[in-house]
């Protein structure tokens, strides 16, 4: 950024964006220009041109499907899943890493997708609740949550289940106390905790990775 040139202008970011856009009709002639941008230039949609140019390519495998995407740097994995891929099973609770509703697996590790920038998952394998089981064949943890009534409103449930699966696979589900400690990143405002612990302990008792 050129500080001095922008110092007197209240909308310096806007100014540099506009300067960039002035050249975009020229850029539109190049083959590498995203089609969305070319279309937007033709329609005079400045803002859309800017967004299209600010996007970066992202290759990521989501629930076993290889995806070639284009995302803005500021887009979180959570918003990518929900807004761009329509995978709305992953919930937005607090959006600040304090509730765990957005928990997904990245390369087998449970993470808060609200604090994960989508671009940092380049080359990774992401699993969401949609990729865990299917309507025809539920995952054992999903079955256990139903059996033990591990939810009331259900909003935290996808995050709880993703976290619970990882909790067992990490080897941190050896006692109810350990489960409570290692599931503390998933808040349930309905207070289904005791049933959630029972569900996890039952799945754990059957042994093995899940």
């Amino acid at each position, binding site marked *: *950024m050129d*500080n001095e040139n*922008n*110092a007197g202008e*209240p*909308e*310096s*970011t*806007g100014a540099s964006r506009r300067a960039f856009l002035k050249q975009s009709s020229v850029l539109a002639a190049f083959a590498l220009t995203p089609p969305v941008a070319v279309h937007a230039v033709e329609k005079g949609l400045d803002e859309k041109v800017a967004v299209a140019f*600010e996007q*970066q390519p992202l290759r990521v495998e989501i629930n076993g499907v290889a995806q070639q995407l284009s995302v*803005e*740097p*500021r887009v*979180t994995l959570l918003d990518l899943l929900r807004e761009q891929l329509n995978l709305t099973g992953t919930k937005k609770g607090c*959006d*600040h*890493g304090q509730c*765990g509703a957005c*928990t997904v697996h990245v390369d087998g*590790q*449970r*993470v*808060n997708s609200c*604090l*994960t*920038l989508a*671009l*940092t998952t*380049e080359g990774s394998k992401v699993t969401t609740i949609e990729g865990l089981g299917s309507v025809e064949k539920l995952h054992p943890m999903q079955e256990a949550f139903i059996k033990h009534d591990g939810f009331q409103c259900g909003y935290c449930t996808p995050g709880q289940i993703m*976290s619970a699966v*990882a*909790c067992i696979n*990490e080897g*941190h589900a050896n006692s109810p106390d350990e489960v*409570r*400690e*290692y*599931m*503390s*990143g*998933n808040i349930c405002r309905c207070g289904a905790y005791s049933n959630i612990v029972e569900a996890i302990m039952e799945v754990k008792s059957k042994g093995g990775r899940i």
Partner: protein
Amino acid sequence: MNPFQFTRANTPQAAVSAVSKETGAYFLAGGTNLIDLIKREVVIPERLVDINHLPLATIEETTSGIRIGAMAKNSAVADHELIKKHFPLLSMALNAGASAQLRNMATVGGNMMQRTRCPYFYDHSMPCNKRGPVQSGPSKGQPNGPAGCGAIGGVNRMHAIFGTSEKCIAVHPSDMCIALAALDATVNVTGPKGNRSIPFAEFHRLPGDAPQKDNTLLPGELILSVDVPKNECAKYAHYLKVRDRASYAFALVSVGVAVDMKGKTIQDIRLAMGGVAHKPWRLAEAERYLKGKEATIENFKQAATLAMQGAKGYGENEFKLTLAPNSIIEALQIATQTV
């Protein structure tokens, strides 16, 4: 979130170069604090330099101890056999912090770089001396909210009782850093002017007149690894964390203890406190007092009294003046198995 540029760095040198050449460029590691700060517009970056692909995540034995790569995840360090065997205090402290998900994301370097959770720092409509100028966008260079310290005379239950200044009474929120301070770690960094090593005690700083500076890193410097030297204090160790709920909460007060005992005599001891200062608070006076003495409640009480010299409350946090010495005594009793 405000828009920003995004660059992926393939080497530490490239990362340092990218962050050095523009103000408002930040290293992005696990992102568990930085992304939150960006969402709250406390940090408004021009560019994030993704360092997640740098080969800095190894944990290895060296001739003098263990070297932990800056990009090693908190969960990987906590569960590592070498760490559990030689530095159980570090493992316990890590597991006391955040949640399992966050520990899977957060890195060792990022944990050291995390900012205070003082609510005034996070709310840019409130006075705070710790927030620096806006780094990007229309208000670049302008103060990010009013100056002053909202916590002094305000809501300060979580705040510091040691090493405060008129400008800031925030605390450093890390548990891991309490253990690393107690264990005499060294931080290895690289930067525009080359490599250097910083003793852990000198890495974080007190607020003084410049509370916007949490640490002594120079602009563009990147943490590469942390060295933890061998000691004989692995057998008797404990990390006591007192907080508002049993898990997944920041410390009101925490105490890290590691002791080498022969019979009941303390040969060597490491003591540090969290939740009480702008940096991990090493209890050097108490350590000196206890060395060579018996592990008894009387000695622990005297050590706690020595440790509390100079402590000062600010109203709502005055309960820490009682909680802290009690926590020191309890942590010592648990660590030395003399409860």
